[in-house]
């Protein structure tokens, strides 16, 4: 299967990749193997770390289900670059953790990075034209704090790194590339055109990589969709977001869209209603998930599904580049499935709802429902033992993250609230979990009524809610048959959630 290299640059990149992972976990299938590469100098970046952890969990789970036809959760392969290289036979540990390690940013200040003190006077003056005092003195540890001028310099090293070379070497004919960046941040705005340029050049350390030059490249550039609270201490000021966007767009006009470098470019943004805490990176820079990130992830899905004939690269230039925007049906502040455009809804609602119910059942019911046939009537039982093992524990962690992600989406503005959930928060106002307030679980999809048949009007005669769920699980278990417990578990739940969503919702 061909590969899709997804470069996530900066905080936005990390968050979009996270949304992508969630979508892939829900069952949206790409016909590619996804190789995420996250580029962010902010090592301790909260979003980055969350995403990496999630990717590792995804991989662990997905490995158990490789090619299992009954499970459609975790359907797509996600690999690190080093795994790609290892597959080809050579041993390498470049990017074995989804993250490109930028060198020299741990402790240096920018001026050390560019070796400012040792520049000759003319260069020093020229440099100070381009960079302010503040810029020169900035500590690079936490990224570029919204300064693409710094970012572009520092990130250049990526393109001279061993990792980049390894990437170029592993790039094959049918592979594609997708780059995620924000246009108003620090890292993304700089990194995207830089990366693009280097890929299109296709030369690393004097070696030409032809496939790379002709690569099909897609990108999403995320425009402002939030503010940060005003903080004098912080170097980040959201008032400058729009102007920076404009500046960047000018640059793109010449160097991205204008010269047909990119085969498909996706634009996304929103009216700015949200205000986040002003954190200059580090562990605390963890913004709530936003619907925009899902939309951006959908761009990747869309990109992966475009027919190769439509986006060809000829002689290093995109033949007929596509430019796309994202829209929804209703202009509302709380987006439900019905408010999405029909295609979007069709793509998302089954997968997300199925995974939602899967998540819900595991959280609320599974430990009490272990003596039903789906769990215990087969040689590989789902029992307390199973629940103590690594697979299940990883899955539980993943699901927790998923729920937190859903909670964050829910309470954000614009809110993405396809399900009627209560969001629980912790001491520092972070989302800790979500909760369901009712027993009639099929009324939880906002805007979608529970489908009832004539039997359910006679009380007591029809199965409802969790009982119905269990009945579907039992039936699904019969169809899935016997298998290893992990596979059987995922297979049963995949089938059951699909059939129950079919029966009760859409």
């Amino acid at each position, binding site marked *: 299967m061909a590969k899709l290299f997804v470069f996530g640059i900066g905080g936005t990149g990390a968050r979009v990749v996270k949304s992508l992972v969630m979508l892939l976990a829900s069952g949206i299938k790409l016909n590619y193997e996804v190789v995420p590469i996250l580029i962010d100098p902010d090592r301790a970046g909260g979003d980055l770390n969350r995403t990496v952890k999630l990717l590792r969990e995804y991989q662990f789970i997905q490995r158990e289900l490789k090619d299992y036809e009954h499970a459609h959760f975790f359907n797509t392969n996600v690999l690190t670059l080093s795994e790609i290289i290892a597959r080809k036979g050579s041993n390498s540990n470049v990017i074995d953790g989804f993250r490109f390690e930028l060198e020299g940013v741990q402790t240096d200040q920018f001026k050390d990075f560019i070796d400012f003190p040792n520049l000759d006077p003319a260069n020093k003056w020229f440099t100070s034209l381009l960079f302010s005092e503040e810029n020169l003195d900035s500590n690079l540890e936490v990224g570029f704090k919204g300064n693409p001028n710094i970012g572009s310099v520092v990130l250049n090293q990526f393109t001279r790194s061993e990792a980049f070379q390894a990437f170029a070497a592993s790039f094959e004919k049918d592979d594609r590339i997708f780059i995620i960046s924000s246009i108003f941040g620090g890292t993304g705005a700089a990194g995207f055109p830089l990366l693009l340029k280097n890929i299109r050049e296709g030369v690393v350390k004097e070696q030409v990589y032809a496939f790379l030059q002709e690569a099909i490249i897609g990108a999403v550039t995320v425009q402002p969709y939030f503010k940060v609270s005003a903080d004098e201490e912080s170097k980040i000021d959201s008032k400058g977001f729009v102007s920076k966007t404009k500046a960047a767009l000018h640059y793109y006009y010449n160097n991205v869209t204008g010269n047909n470098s990119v085969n498909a470019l996706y634009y996304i943004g929103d009216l700015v209603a949200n205000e986040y805490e002003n954190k200059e990176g580090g562990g605390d820079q963890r913004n709530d998930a936003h619907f925009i990130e899902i939309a951006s992830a959908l761009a990747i899905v869309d990109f992966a599904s475009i027919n190769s004939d439509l986006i060809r690269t000829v002689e290093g230039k995109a033949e007929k580049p596509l430019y796309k925007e994202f829209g929804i049906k209703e202009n509302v502040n709380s987006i439900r499935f019905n408010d999405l455009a029909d295609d979007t809804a069709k793509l998302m609602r089954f997968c997300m709802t199925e995974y939602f119910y899967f998540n819900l059942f595991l959280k609320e019911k599974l430990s009490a*429902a272990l*003596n*039903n*046939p789906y769990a*215990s*009537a087969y040689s590989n039982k789902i029992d307390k033992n199973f629940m103590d093992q690594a697979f299940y524990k990883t899955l539980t962690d993943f699901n927790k993250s998923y729920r937190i992600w859903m909670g964050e989406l829910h309470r954000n503005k614009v809110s993405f609230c396809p399900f009627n959930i209560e969001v629980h928060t912790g001491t520092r106002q972070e989302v800790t979990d979500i909760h369901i307030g009712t027993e009639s679980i099929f009324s939880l999809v906002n805007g979608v009524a529970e489908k009832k048949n004539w039997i359910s009007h006679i009380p007591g005669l029809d*199965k409802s809610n969790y*009982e119905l769920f*269990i*009945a579907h699980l*039992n*039936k699904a278990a*019969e169809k899935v048959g016997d298998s290893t417990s992990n596979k059987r578990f995922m297979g049963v739940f995949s089938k059951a959630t699909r059939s129950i969503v079919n029966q009760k919702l859409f």
Partner: protein
Amino acid sequence: MNEMFAPLYEFFHYSVPFSDDLFDEGVYGTLGLYAVLISFAFVMLFYYVINRPAFSRWYHWAIILGINFLTAFSLGAFIPKTRFSALGIQYSSEYYAFALKNALIASCFFILLSFGLRWWSTNAKRTPIPH
């Protein structure tokens, strides 16, 4: 039919001449058939018609077993009584002792049929004893 069930019933209960009257009037055949069929119907009811996860614990099964028992007891008292009264034969306490045995036999059928027929039930195949 009568000859088939007679040894089964008389294994549990034989008293002259009540048992001979039962035999002569074909009561064994009738009751035996009822026992098998009604137990079969209850088994079908529990495992395939009701077939609910919330009604598949062992005590739910025991409830159905109990209903089957009572049904068999009633039939086991009622049918011989009506038949014999119509012929002018009289007995009294024998009916109830026999009805008890009939109910036991029906329960045996119910248990056997449960274990034999439960395998295709999606929600109750592990009732009453998981396999």
